[in-house]
């Protein structure tokens, strides 16, 4: 005797309750605060802000807490919140040349105006587990030595130096309003502004792997990190009632400009070319990856050959880079599909019967 399974509602309710319990974990361990996540897991917060396309460290920290540390789930929470927010207007383009840099390095020049600033980087740490961190109530961390109080010198962009000699392609100013990926459906072909917009919110892992593939020969285009800078920039907005722009806040950005070899093509002379990455927060790996993928996607405008490499294929890259879309579609296959499966069952049984593989079989009831 068969009774159809009922009670989906109660099952969902109980699942949610259990989830909340698991999220909290052992109650004898102190609960994480949003501030702790924001301050001590700041790189996770940065990633959630970047891929969630919403600059709000507190909300990103809340999302990480709610998502039990699953960063893609946290990005999803932020995206779903972001989409409900009203739009008041657009800011002016941020001026990264005026960035107050925490970190600024160039791999192409030993020294340069503005200097090399190492900043808070893992680069030269030895990856040895620091068991002192495991000892609770440890001593206060050592304070970094502050540089002098002198006003920071301007930090001009490295690519500007190359530009003076005409060695690198021009990046002419373009005031065309960029398309808005979140308000218009993505349609191909996508111009560079749209591609960069998609890449800056793209999944870090996907972008990293694509960039890596270009380094290993799939549309190889050797990239030098002309400059990598991390710091804060002012966000300005024109206020119509005032008639001028005012600062409405500041945000941390990571910007990467690559300088790529280019031997020239039918249409372009031999010169260096550019790849560009710009990402919310301290998100160095992502910004460098973005610059490499950006450069690979520019093959057509530069008159390069289509190597058939994944990183050159804008449709492939842009349609598969969004981790919220990807994870949603991937995970939906765990939803019930028994109607479709049933029709496939019928078909396979019919084909097997005709192929003589299986005798007519009545359902044993």
């Amino acid at each position, binding site marked *: *005797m*068969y009774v*159809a*399974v*009922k*009670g*989906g*509602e109660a*099952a*969902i309710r109980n699942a949610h309750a259990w989830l909340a319990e698991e999220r909290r974990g052992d109650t004898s361990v102190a609960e994480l605060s949003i501030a702790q996540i924001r301050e001590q897991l700041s790189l996770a917060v940065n990633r959630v802000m970047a891929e969630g396309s919403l600059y709000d460290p507190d909300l990103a920290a809340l999302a990480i807490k709610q998502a039990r540390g699953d960063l893609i789930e946290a990005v*999803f929470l932020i*995206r*779903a919140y*972001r*989409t*409900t927010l*009203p739009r008041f207007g657009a800011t002016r383009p941020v001026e990264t040349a005026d960035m107050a840099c925490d970190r600024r390095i160039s791999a192409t020049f030993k020294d340069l105006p503005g200097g090399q600033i190492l900043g808070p980087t893992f680069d030269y740490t030895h990856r040895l587990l620091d068991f002192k961190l495991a000892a609770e109530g440890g001593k206060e961390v050592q304070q970094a030595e502050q540089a002098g109080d002198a006003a920071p010198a301007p930090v001009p962009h490295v690519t500007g130096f190359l530009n003076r000699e005409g060695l690198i392609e021009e990046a002419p100013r373009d005031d065309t309003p960029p398309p808005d990926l*979140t*308000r*218009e*459906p*993505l*349609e*191909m*072909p996508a111009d560079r502004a749209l591609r960069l917009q998609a890449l800056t919110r793209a999944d870090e892992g996907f972008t990293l792997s694509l960039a890596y593939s270009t380094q290993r020969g799939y549309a190889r285009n050797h990239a030098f990190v002309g400059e990598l800078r991390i710091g804060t920039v002012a966000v300005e907005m024109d206020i119509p009632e005032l008639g001028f722009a005012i600062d409405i806040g500041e945000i941390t950005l990571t910007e990467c400009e690559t300088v790529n070899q280019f031997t020239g093509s039918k249409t372009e002379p031999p010169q260096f070319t550019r790849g560009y990455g710009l990402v919310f927060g301290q998100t160095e790996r992502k910004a460098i990856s973005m610059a490499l993928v950006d450069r690979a996607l520019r093959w057509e405008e530069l008159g390069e050959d289509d190597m058939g490499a994944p990183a050159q294929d804008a*449709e492939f890259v842009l*349609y598969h880079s969004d981790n*919220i*879309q990807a*994870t*949603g*579609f*991937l*995970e*939906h*296959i765990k*939803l*019930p*599909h*028994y*109607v*479709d499966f*049933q*029709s*496939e*069952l*019928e*078909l396979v049984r*019919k*084909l097997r019967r*005709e192929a003589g593989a299986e005798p007519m079989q009545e*359902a*044993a*009831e």
Partner: protein
Amino acid sequence: MTDQAYNFAYLDEQTKRMIRRAILKGLAIPGYQVPFASREMPMPYGWGTGGVQVSAAVLTPDDRFKVIDQGADDTTNAVSIRSFFERTAGVATTTVTTEATVIQTRHRIPEVPLAEGQILVYQVPIPEPLRFLEPRESETRKMHSLEEYGLMHVKLYEDIARHGHIATSYAYPVKVEGRYVMDPSPIPKFDNPKLADCPAIQLFGAGREQRIYALPPYTQVVSLDFEDHPFEASRADHPCGLCGAVDSYLDEVITDDAGGRMFVCSDTDYCETRQAAGHRGKDAA
């Protein structure tokens, strides 16, 4: 969540207007996939975000809403989407097909014929019927605009050459008003004939793929086939174990670990209505 913090049916009015424009365009060009700026919804892509956005755009406070997944009102995702609109739109809900004004569905068309004034909203995973023949969107859009559907016919022909049958049992492609080849969403091909000449409005929403398409009432919809291999709507060759129906689509349910199984209607409302009217299948209590 304080539900008052959100607009009626969750989406803001600007977004709903954008979606309604896409729907109207879709109704004006039956079977044509209209790109629309799909929003992130509070449920994942793949869970019916396209259908949810279409439902949000067409629902009014007077509507009576029904949600089915695999034909059933009580599957977890149907329950979840129904409660989403109960919370954000406060609309009345029902499980009775004939009482509903808007029905959101995943993978089925109700057994009871729909009527004028009803809207059937399909959740669509891959709106492009040509996608698995040509992965590039830029190419498939070109093929649609040139009405170049040879590739699809070749695929169906190759099925017949290899298996003696067209080996597509769900998401079976159709041609709309002699023009666009359309994916009917992953409904079993048993449901395909119900698409045609239907008095209700049929709307298809694909959130992740950012496409909406539509069939206005009484549209001609033809399942692709060949003269010598005509389309055949198939179902398991059994009566329903609970209500005895011989005209409904059946789910196969495994009842023990010794090969025991039974067949029951996938449309739970249809089955329950029949049982209430006194119809009994051989496995009914």
